[in-house]
């Protein structure tokens, strides 16, 4: 029987906010790993074997065992690699609170945000309103705190961080995060000062260019 390969591998796609969460978490914990970029139009055998149920990235492979779903991967990274920081707090109530808001980002931000990207101009106004509502809810939760985890950069910060590179594109669609949610925008700038975030996210203009390309292909066609 083959001995499982030791080490950490991340199967990912450069633009995926879910993959970026894992990259940030691995960087926060200073874990050395091999990054493997997947061609989503031609998924590798390794990806199909490691995530046979959903066939999606990201997948973390640790000593031959695969872990799927970004927030599950982030919690796994937190539990297995001690590092200098904790991604989740130790108090059970604080943990449930962090998980609730990370789950909120999953349920609300990605769905509505990607609808915005794909929508025709007639639907934009309504979607903008819905999205602003979601962002304002997050902003209320953030309040005056430095991070969602208070003084500690944590799970909710990691869950939402990748979406900050979408802000520039939202502006092009008539939604200014700076204007509507200044505290959230300030948090977005603050987290970019962390090396783990700065090296995991892409230039907002790159996201915008891709968005324009996809829009031309699928929406305006």
């Amino acid at each position, binding site marked *: 029987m083959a001995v499982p390969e030791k080490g950490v591998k991340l199967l990912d796609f450069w633009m995926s906010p879910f993959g970026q969460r894992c990259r940030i978490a691995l960087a926060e914990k200073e874990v050395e790993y091999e990054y493997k970029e997947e061609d989503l139009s031609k998924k590798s055998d390794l990806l199909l074997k490691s995530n046979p149920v959903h066939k999606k990235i990201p997948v973390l492979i640790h000593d031959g065992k695969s872990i799927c*779903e970004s927030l*599950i991967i982030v919690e796994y990274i937190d539990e297995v690699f001690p590092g200098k920081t904790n991604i989740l707090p130790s108090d059970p109530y604080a943990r*449930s609170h962090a*998980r609730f808001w990370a789950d909120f980002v999953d349920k609300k931000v990605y769905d509505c945000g990607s609808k915005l990207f794909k929508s025709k101009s007639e639907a934009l106004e309504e979607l903008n309103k*819905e999205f602003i509502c979601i962002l304002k809810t997050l902003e209320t939760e953030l309040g005056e705190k430095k991070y969602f985890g208070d003084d500690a950069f944590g799970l909710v910060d990691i869950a939402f961080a990748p979406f900050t590179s979408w802000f520039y594109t939202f502006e092009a669609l008539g939604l200014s995060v700076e204007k509507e949610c200044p505290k959230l925008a300030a948090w977005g700038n603050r987290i970019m000062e962390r090396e783990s975030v700065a090296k995991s996210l892409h230039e907002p203009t790159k996201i915008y260019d891709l968005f324009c390309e996809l829009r031309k292909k699928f929406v305006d066609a």
Partner: protein
Amino acid sequence: MATKQDVKVLGWSASPFVARVRIALNLKGIEYEFLNEDLGRKSDLLLKSNPVYKKVPVLIHGEKPVCESLLIVQYIDEVWAASGLPILPADAYDRAVARFWAAYIDDKLPNQAPVLLGEADEPTKAEATQHMFAALQQLEEVFEKCSEGKSFFGGNTIGYVDITLGSYLGWMKAMEKIAGIKLLDEEKIPQLVKWAERFCSSDAVKEVIPQVDQFVEFSKVLQAAFKAAASPSN
């Protein structure tokens, strides 16, 4: 030691999500006060405790609210780690696997409920039934792998995946009656059918999941709840 006043569960008895919380508390031997919500007229306490979603279940522990059923189960497991038996596995990888399958179950099963517990045309029902079968078939394989010959997904005792899937058994039996289909088919998913019997007869679960006839009675209320859930949240 938590007293009954310290722990409250806001819910209603036909909800699988609420059942999860009650089963978890029972497994830990924690006494609690159950506050039955009228879904047509949500209480001030519910609206205050879950302002984001305004939904049940909510666990209130010493005045602090915890929301979202699976997050509540994890909270119960962590806060009362010294009571009863562990709900999530001790090993980090096994925990990740348990969380994965719980997320899978919640992704696949509840979507079929509005159709199979409500009124829909035959083609729509047939499609929803197919989705249910496919998920249950997958879970039959998962059970074989995770249980390693023992009684539950969690091993010898009820665990996280058992609670997540088991909480739907009431709905599944009701779907069989209302939609006239057979989901818990001994020929197609023999291990899950036996598992379901074991799960439902366990002490922690027995009193929590209502009888099928009660679900059928509830179906009108359920349909209204599904319609409300489908509309944009206020």
